[in-house]
């Protein structure tokens, strides 16, 4: 009796959440199950249910051929993004906070935040304006002012790791700085007041108050980022190098590998295997790092 009363009371809640639930099922859960396509020898004629099983073959080919370099690219870039990004964003936040003129601080913050709002397609045009072989500003400067030869930017792999890290930080540093700034602003002013009374210099205040108070947030954000280390921002790696095949050894990450495979290049079997590989390793990483985050600060973990 009580059970049915409970059910009846829960009906409105279920009704409210059902539209979102339906969409979640279609776009998140069904694809999870469809992931078994990685174990099939999929072809478009036979479709999903008709394609023959292939066991672990797709994975075998994947690991024989491409898995190493795309994994290496994905992980190494993310490591660079996480640590360099952290240093830059925290430094920006501190500078913005300490600036004497609040009006300028707001101005700088707005401008630095802006790149986060534009799409990677537009960023690829910007990069093109700089790096175009015949018209780009950089080659113009190289041949004009410096008198050296122009560089074929979209064909030389050696520069791209640096370019990509730079561009990624350019786009997200302002955004992350805002988050750290929010943390700094929330530090109890009494700490600083008593530090000043004790005669502490600005630098000492930073060392003993600001930095320790920032550390938990930094650790949590870093851990969460590590949980996503197998995932890359497809926009960055697909659009900015303009999908130049020559650059693949340094710009192809797991996500672009999958996207290219879907678009027809590469084999769909290996691509599907790459997708499952990424999701599975990603799951393990996210769960492990979240458990670690949970130990330190329960509220910031995802679950």
């Amino acid at each position, binding site marked *: 009796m009580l059970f049915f009363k409970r059910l009846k009371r829960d009906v409105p809640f279920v009704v409210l959440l059902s539209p979102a639930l339906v969409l979640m099922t279609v776009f998140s859960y069904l694809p999870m199950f469809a992931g078994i396509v990685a174990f099939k020898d999929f072809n478009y004629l036979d479709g999903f249910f008709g394609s023959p099983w292939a066991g672990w073959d797709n994975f075998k080919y994947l690991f024989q051929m491409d898995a190493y370099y795309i994994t290496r690219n994905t992980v190494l870039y993310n490591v660079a993004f996480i640590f360099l990004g952290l240093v830059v964003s925290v430094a920006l936040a501190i500078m913005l906070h300490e600036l004497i003129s609040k009006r300028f601080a707001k101005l700088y913050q707005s401008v630095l935040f802006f790149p986060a709002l534009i*799409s990677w397609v537009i960023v690829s045009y910007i990069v093109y304006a700089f790096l175009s072989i015949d018209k780009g500003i950089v080659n113009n400067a190289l041949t004009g002012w410096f008198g050296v030869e122009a560089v074929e930017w979209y064909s030389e792999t050696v520069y791209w790791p640096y370019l990509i890290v730079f561009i990624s930080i350019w786009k997200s540093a302002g955004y992350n700085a805002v988050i750290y700034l929010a943390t700094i602003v929330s530090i109890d002013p009494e700490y600083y007041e008593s530090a000043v009374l004790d005669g502490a210099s600005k630098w000492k205040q930073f060392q003993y108050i600001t930095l320790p108070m920032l550390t938990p947030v930094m650790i949590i954000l870093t851990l969460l980022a590590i949980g996503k280390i197998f995932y890359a921002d497809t926009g960055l790696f697909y659009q900015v190098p303009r999908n130049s095949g020559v650059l693949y050894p340094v710009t192809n990450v797991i996500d672009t590998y999958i996207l290219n495979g879907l678009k027809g290049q590469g084999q769909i079997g290996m691509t599907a295997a790459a997708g499952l590989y990424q999701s599975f390793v990603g799951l393990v990483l996210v769960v492990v790092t979240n458990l670690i985050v949970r130990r330190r600060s329960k509220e910031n973990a995802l679950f």
Partner: protein
Amino acid sequence: MRSASATTNRLNSISKLSNLSFHLILGFLSILCLLPMLLILSVSLTDERALNLNGFQFWPETFSLESYRYIFAYGYSVANAYAVSIFVTLAGTALCVLLSAMYAYSISRNSFGARRAFTFIAVFTLLYNGGLISFYIVCTRLFDLHNQIYALILPYAVNAFNIIVFRTYFLTNIHESVIEAAKMDGASEYRIFFNIVLRMSLPVVATVGLLSSITYWNDWMLAMLFIDDPGLYPLQYLLMRIENSVTAIQSVAGSAGASYAQAELDKLPVESARMAMVIVAIGPIALAYPFFQRFFIQGLNLGAVKG
């Protein structure tokens, strides 16, 4: 703002030298963020022949509005893409905000028995996904989303991250007592949600709305996967399509029936027109930004630090 005065009032501010160096660094970085826009703007306003001779410059060698004339005269595709993007963004954002809030409301209420289960169902989608291939197979084989406008809206309509943001807000800002009082007045849960809770949640609605709008406006992936009808190209995807080929630029004109004699093809403002389209694409964001900027930053503070 107490904290600000504690650390930076006259008694406790950084040295003039440090302040100056911060200004220099921040100023330099700000220029780095703005300079690229200036370059694009300049190229869009430069005569095409000057571009062919001298390449891109920060200041137009020869000023010309030809590229803008071109896309406004023949840019049927641009206007169409704009319309598609605007519709998709508005519809998508509205849907996303509404559906996420509804779900979050349900899982935030203590009296909901299956609360934990549904919270897990939402959070799990953040931990594991099936991968792009299976997503594509589900969307095109199981459901036919090919060349449908829904394909641009529905996939991003529900996002567990937004659900969590809403839920956190509901849990910390909506007092149980308010809901209790409403129930005593005989209100149904639907009433409580739509008339009371939602009205009290405008800050988080604004935040999720803004974040969601950016996602929709900037997306190119859904169009790339599901759309090959040029009439349904959203703006970013159109930009992507014309990135490489001259013929694609011509097709911008072609759709309005214009044809160019071979000699005129050389004068086609290819590079400047592309950059002009970028300016036209960034336009709304750049113009709206000063007004919405406060909401962005506030919203980030709300959503990010808490969870």
